[in-house]
């Protein structure tokens, strides 16, 4: 039966203008979405390159000034810009702490339209954890980005439904089912094979569309290509499992279509939305405005008692007080000491912010198993390096680097050392390290598990029903 089903199902599909249209649509969606994703990645890369160019130009100028000063030239520079001051270098020659896009970033915009991809940590700057989000168009945030992940998670199930919602009901409505059922075959097996063949067909189309999308965007990662395709196939398996269940349980094509669209709404829209809403209620994150206001209040308080803060700071850090005397205390000595106090006082609020974010993410991670759409979206985001975990990893690296940057200048400041070209060559450098442990395949196993659950429920329901072939044929 399979050989004949395979041969003629492919002929029927190839001769159906509706299927041809769907196939073309699938190709167009993949190509457009991947192009769109690549545009965003290119912009991100261009932004980082542009920032790096500005820094490189500034570094070159600064170094030439330093060398000139070291040769004894009098450049008559203002004390606020002279590069011999460590704080001036720490503020005016920051490094670019960038999170470059990985090769697969084009397939899922993920959180990348919310967060920035580079920051320039300054020695006197605020806590960089607060400055990671980027201004984004609210319209775009509302509708999301039209990337490959969007096409796979949201639109591919609709294409699967359109391809296979009426495998059995079409036969019944056309009148060919009775002739078919009079053959020595199991109709359930026949439906299963037909749906399997249609899945094979769409898989071929997805493979073709993926190949075109990867080639057009010059993506050379073969692993990424294979894994993306496997993700699509596993996700489609879930939806084909559902269409099989609906095909053999329900009678008319219109009913099938409505039931399957209902499932789409539940799994793709409702469950993710409900999880998000409930997590907002259970683990509210303190508002960013509250954080910023508190930070300003603490700064203002600190400025009022800067002398006292500096004394306390030097008592806590005697290593910085070696060359200290009353004449060498500058604005920056007091300011940097107060920055540390402000940071310590803000720590509980920042911790609450971080803890609630972590709890919320943990909760969402637990409930992601309820929807294959969430699992696949998360999987694609992690592979694209645009997941929440990736940005959290980036944020931690920026925090560490900003501390490293500050720590490099603090001894120079408090020891009243002159900044030299030798110091310049030893400036800390930021190198983003992606966390490979974020990527793992357990979510795809989760989708397979959900598919198995659907099929087991179908089998049990069928076994429990007293009606057999009759329910399918009539």
């Amino acid at each position: 039966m399979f050989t004949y089903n395979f041969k003629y199902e492919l002929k029927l599909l190839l001769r159906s203008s509706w299927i041809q249209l769907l196939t073309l649509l699938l190709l167009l969606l993949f190509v457009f979405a991947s192009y769109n994703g690549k545009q965003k990645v290119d912009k991100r890369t261009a932004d980082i390159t542009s920032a790096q160019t500005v820094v490189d130009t500034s570094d070159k100028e600064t170094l030439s000034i330093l060398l000139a000063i070291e040769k004894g030239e009098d450049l008559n520079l203002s004390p606020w810009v002279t590069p011999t001051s460590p704080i001036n270098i720490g503020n005016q020659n920051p490094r670019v702490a960038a999170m470059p896009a990985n090769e697969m970033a084009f397939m899922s915009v993920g959180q990348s339209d919310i967060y920035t991809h580079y920051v320039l940590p300054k020695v006197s700057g605020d806590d960089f954890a607060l400055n990671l989000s980027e201004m984004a168009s609210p319209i775009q945030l509302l509708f999301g980005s039209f990337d490959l992940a969007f096409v796979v998670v949201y639109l591919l199930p609709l294409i699967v439904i359109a391809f296979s919602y009426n495998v059995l009901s079409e036969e019944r409505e056309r009148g060919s089912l009775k002739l078919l059922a009079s053959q020595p075959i199991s109709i359930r097996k026949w439906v299963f094979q037909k749906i399997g063949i249609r899945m094979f067909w769409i898989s071929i189309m997805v493979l073709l569309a993926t190949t075109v999308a990867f080639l057009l965007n010059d993506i050379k990662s073969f692993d990424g290509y294979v894994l993306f395709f496997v993700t699509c196939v596993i996700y489609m398996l879930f939806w084909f499992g559902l269409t099989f269940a609906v095909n053999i349980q329900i009678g008319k094509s219109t009913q099938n279509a409505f039931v399957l669209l209902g499932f789409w709404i539940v799994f793709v829209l409702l469950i993710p939305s409900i999880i998000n809403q409930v997590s907002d209620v259970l683990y509210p994150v303190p508002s960013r405005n509250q954080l910023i206001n508190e930070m300003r209040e603490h700064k203002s308080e600190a400025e009022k008692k800067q002398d006292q803060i500096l004394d306390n700071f030097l008592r806590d850090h005697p290593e910085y007080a070696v060359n200290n005397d009353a004449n060498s205390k500058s604005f920056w000595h007091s300011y940097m000491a107060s920055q540390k106090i402000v940071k310590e006082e803000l720590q509980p609020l920042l911790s609450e912010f971080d803890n609630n974010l972590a709890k919320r993410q943990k909760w969402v991670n637990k409930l992601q198993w309820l929807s294959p759409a969430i699992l696949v979206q998360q999987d694609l985001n992690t592979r694209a390096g645009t997941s929440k975990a990736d940005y959290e990893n980036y944020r931690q690296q920026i925090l560490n680097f900003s501390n490293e940057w500050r720590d490099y200048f603090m001894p120079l400041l408090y020891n009243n050392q002159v900044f030299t070209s030798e110091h310049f060559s030893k400036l800390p450098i930021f190198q983003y390290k992606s966390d490979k442990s974020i990527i793992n395949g357990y979510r795809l196993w989760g989708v397979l598990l959900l598919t198995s659950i659907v099929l087991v429920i179908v089998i049990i329901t069928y076994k429990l029903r007293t009606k057999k072939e009759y329910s399918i044929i009539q």
Partner: protein
Amino acid sequence: MITTKKITKKYGDFTALDQLSLNVKPGEIYCLLGANGAGKSTTINLVLGFINPTSGEALINGKSVFKNNIETKKDIAYIPENLMLYPTLTAMENLDYFSGIGGQKLKKDQLESLLIQSGLQPEAFYKRTNAFSKGMRQKVGIAIAIAKQAKALLLDEPTSGLDPKASNEFGELLQELKGNGVATLMATHDLFRAKEIATHIGIMKSGKLKQQFTASDISLPQLEKAYLDTMNYKELAK
């Protein structure tokens, strides 16, 4: 051989078929006559195993249809009232597909030979069936049935809507199959055709087999009168 033993089908309180027993031997054509709702199609559906009986049993060559549904279907060929094919496949492809999934692997010349045997015009063999008339589709259906080399043939109003020529050709084909030892059970409204091709005729009403005849023992007018009497069409019977 097609056998039903006191087969009954109820839908709630409604009895669609009531204790029907009949026996169609190889080389016999049994025509079931009756008005709409008499239980003719229900009988065919029960013998095909499309529906489960409330009680009783249907057998094909001594095997229970309900216990060995797929196995017994190997011996059954079926032509419904309005046979529909895959419109985007040609006659040859439809025949190849339906024969193939039933386990008959046929070569191109065998498929052509079957279509010739069914009476389909050769120029239609490689045309898509979307423009086929009902008669042409029925012929493809007959070819599917012949290909199966089935021992039992079930026909549900096969000549309704056919023009007289097509109907006549259909009758001739049934006679050929009868000669090959096929047991045929046919539900029809067509008294004339039933008298012409059947070896046995049964008249059904309200799910019951009211009268049975050997076709050779009864003339067409007698059959017509018996039918109208059974249906209580007294005015017409006069």
